[in-house]
């Protein structure tokens, strides 16, 4: 162990494969753009919500939530249906879901990458993370 040990540029092990580097450099800005698009949809949903509801709606909802009553539990099918029908509140909730899923999609791409590279230890790690996310959603539904 030494402080700032220096090596020649040639190493026995490469730091990242070309595919790993591509995941980082291509997907990361792409994810940011997706998040910006979703954020814009949420913003538009918010503007429509404010335009179509009475002025007191937001304040009323805000105070109900302050009191600890959130009540946002719908099935995914109900939520998607009402979003497709154009309900701005549901569009915003779906937007928040998509926003959350975006970085998780990158894990799915890594999973596919490691399958392609036949790097089975990492296929296992990424599969575990994906399974954990699905388990978390189920746990949220039950809990």
């Amino acid at each position, binding site marked *: *162990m*030494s*402080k*700032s*040990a*220096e*090596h020649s540029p040639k*190493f026995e*092990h490469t*730091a*990242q494969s070309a595919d*790993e580097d591509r995941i*980082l*450099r291509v997907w*990361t*800005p792409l*994810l*940011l753009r997706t*998040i910006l698009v979703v954020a814009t949809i*949420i*913003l538009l949903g*918010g503007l429509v919500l404010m335009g179509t509801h009475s*002025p*007191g*709606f*937001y*304040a009323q909802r*805000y105070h109900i*939530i*302050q009191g600890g009553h*959130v009540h*946002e*539990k*719908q099935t995914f099918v109900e939520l998607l249906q009402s979003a497709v029908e154009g309900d701005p*509140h549901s569009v*915003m*909730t779906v*937007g*928040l879901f998509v*926003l*959350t*899923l*975006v*970085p*998780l999609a990158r*894990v799915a791409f*890594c999973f596919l990458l490691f399958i392609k590279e036949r790097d089975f230890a*990492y296929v296992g*790690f990424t599969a*575990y*993370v994906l399974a*954990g*996310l699905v*388990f*978390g*959603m189920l*746990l*949220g*539904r039950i*809990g």
Partner: protein
Amino acid sequence: MFEILVSLLALAIGAGFVGALSGLGGGVFIVPALVIGAHMPMTVAIGASLISVVATSAGASVAFVRDGWTNLKVAMVLECATVTGAVTGAYLAGVIPTVILELLFALMMLQSAYFSLRKQGDDIIEHGDPLAKKLDLMGEVPDEGGRTIHYEIVHVPGGAALMVVAGLMSGLLGIGSGALKVMAMDYIMHIPLKVSSATSNFMIGVTAGAGALVFLARGDVATVIAAPVALGVTAGALLGSRILPYANVRWLRLGFVVILLLIAVEMGWRALSGI
């Protein structure tokens, strides 16, 4: 209606701005801003914060990835630990008393304050331990002179154990737990600080996303609060990261430590007076 929305947006933009300037992330500041400033229940604040953390980490990770410091394999191994912790934490946040959440939040603020003040320096390892070698956990990072340095990694299980705690705190308290993640990688696994910071940021989106999914699926995310908060925190964070290169970091850091200690006192007081 507009006064409430404008004050909520102002809190969110302020939290995102301070989070980016301090390097601690928006979550550390938005939860107390919502609980203390907007009188929101702790679980509503945590749910909104987790989604904000996902959105802001995507913005910050672009800069880190461009610099080439992110270690994808380290992130993938440790995400197993953080996701396990985050899902457990987010589940527990729905069932354990608010008093405990407030007390834990106060403790995490003290840890963040310590993290901001600690001496920073790299201790680069030339020969990693067998497990790290087997998992191909190593990389290269430029030093201050622009020369490339090869680093290896030790104590993967110890680092992963602290990552479970980081994930747990993220899901329980709605924070990114960046300070704990960097400490696990930097202190325990001896990963260079730049790589630790970049990889931590890469992992934060997945950790907070895992916790946020539990909250969303449970119906604990109040859309009318979480949506403006996520947009505000992201806008504040983008603004903060633009100003950061021109800021006097040493004075700022002292200022943030004072803010963190004040939050710790307030949250601790709330917890103790609620017992």
